[in-house]
């Protein structure tokens, strides 16, 4: 099953390229970058200054029938769901779509110092995490597993960057 990455208001070509390269190394599935024609500003909340992730996924579902595989919507904008202050991403459990924001993965928001390597590492972890949900995985108790929950950036940094033995069995085409 192929994996499709759809950038939406995502401006780092280098990060996208590196993400595709890394996912290609890790999956036997083919990785494609696709263009979905949708304006996510429709899902911007003026009150919160953030974008409503669930609604973005719902809209993307209407526009992506032709793609047979898992779809990651990739964005630079900050995401939220009601009740929570923010989310790094959201995924359909055992479904086709997920969304990932790299907004809060940037190190400069925490330490004031930019760190592109760390941003890449965090992006990979969260992309695998959201894909894991699409493959039916829930959060894992193993801290070395990328499916460990990460409600904050600290947990993103602590958890491992690959799937544990138990979780890996559910991921189609994952090599290592």
């Amino acid at each position: 099953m192929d994996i499709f990455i759809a950038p939406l208001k995502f401006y780092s070509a280098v990060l996208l390229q590196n993400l595709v390269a890394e996912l290609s190394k890790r999956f036997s599935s083919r990785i494609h970058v696709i263009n979905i024609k949708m304006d996510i500003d429709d899902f911007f909340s003026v009150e919160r200054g953030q974008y409503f992730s669930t609604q973005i996924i719902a809209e993307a579902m209407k526009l992506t029938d032709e793609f047979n595989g898992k779809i990651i919507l990739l964005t630079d904008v900050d995401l939220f769901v009601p009740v929570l202050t923010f989310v790094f991403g959201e995924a359909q459990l055992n479904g086709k779509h997920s969304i990932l924001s790299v907004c809060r993965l940037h190190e400069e928001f925490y330490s004031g110092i930019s760190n592109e390597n760390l941003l890449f590492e965090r992006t990979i972890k969260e992309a695998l995490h959201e894909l894991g949900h699409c493959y039916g995985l829930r959060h894992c108790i193993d801290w070395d597993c990328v499916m460990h929950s990460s409600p904050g950036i600290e947990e993103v940094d602590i958890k491992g960057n690959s799937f544990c033995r138990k979780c890996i069995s559910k991921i189609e085409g994952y090599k290592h």
Partner: protein
Amino acid sequence: MDQKEKILIVDDEKIVRESLYHWFEEEDYAVDTAEDGETALNKYEKEKYDLLLVDMKMPGMSGLDLLSKIKAIDKDALIILITAFASVPTAITALKNGAYDYVTKPVDPDELAHLVKKALEQRALKIENTQLKENIDEIIKPDNLIGDSFQMKKIYELVHTVARTDTTVMIRGESGTGKELVAKAIHINSSRKYFPIIPVNCGALAESLLESELFGHEKGAFTGAQFKRKGKFEMADRGTIFLDEIGSISLKMQIELLRVIETKQFNRVGGNELIKSDFRVIIATNEPLEELVKAGKFREDLYYRLNVFTIVIPPLRERRDDIPLLASFFINKFSTVMNKQVKSVSKEAMDFLVNYDWPGNVRELENAIERAMVVGKSNSILVDDLPFHVSMNNFELEGDEKSLSSMERKYILKILNENNWNISKSALILEIDRVTLYNKITKYGLRKAEY
């Protein structure tokens, strides 16, 4: 044991119910929802829930009414109220009426996750089944802690002995011997295993960064700190903190460290709130701390506080019996990663591996196998595939300087000089980390002007 904990979300707003439903579903809870107090009450009467998340303000039966009704059925029911900021005083009344806690909308995901986890753990403690307590007779090793030699067996015994206590452990050994793996083995065999082990490389961080790294900081604590960040000590709550290269921290940080280790309390940088954290300390060093104490570079009180139980990992050259096992492990590892069919090491290459002194220890062996597998063409690693052989061709060996360590010394010096002693760049070319390179520079007494 694997039965999922059941959560009931009660909120009149569909969008809120759905958001929370999906969020908790991913967290691996069994989740149910109710759109009003009456439905929630009906559901609760039919089925037991481990936790209820109840919106304070709902049409019909309010969150507070629902709280009293459920408490009348089950006084131990665990209820967290969700409220808008404006109704905080009402929420405080709710706490007095038996709610476990309350959160204000929108909730920080981290806060919600910890609150729910803490609530459910406290409940579990109440109905604790002591049979669930671990009964480990054999040590569980991290996958890559390899060795069958008597020295490693001795280490496994020590890990086993100390794991189930909360004793501070000092791990000593040369660079590349696997100190972090031993720390991890201690952690995963302890009762803290469900919480993280947090590694901190004290040598890799500048003092100003180390403080924020260890203790965290508040939003706006310094220019650029747009979000608050928890420090390593806070993240290690109920887990283990692993302080690597402890000998490299400044005297000022040593005072801070001693205080935190003793009190288990600290402030985030730029914050007033006193943070408490229940962590276990494991430290590692390859420096002679005793000499640093004598030289006044390491505080004696901290040294005694840390030197409670010591595990010394022997260098690889003192446990050569483990080399074939390690080589085989790394071959398997890289075969999968590189998708190569390498199965073994030729006899000549193995003789070479077993007899080499491995100043960079297991890490160096791992690098050697990896490089051999990259350049090798057959399904067995040959002497020609080993990196030492390749680099040997580039050297003019003089007089008695034919040992591997003298060759390594020359090669490192060559790379350093070629790169104007830029440590990061040289380490990258040598495919070792900066710390290993520093250690080698010290070991061989290399100086810039020497070449």
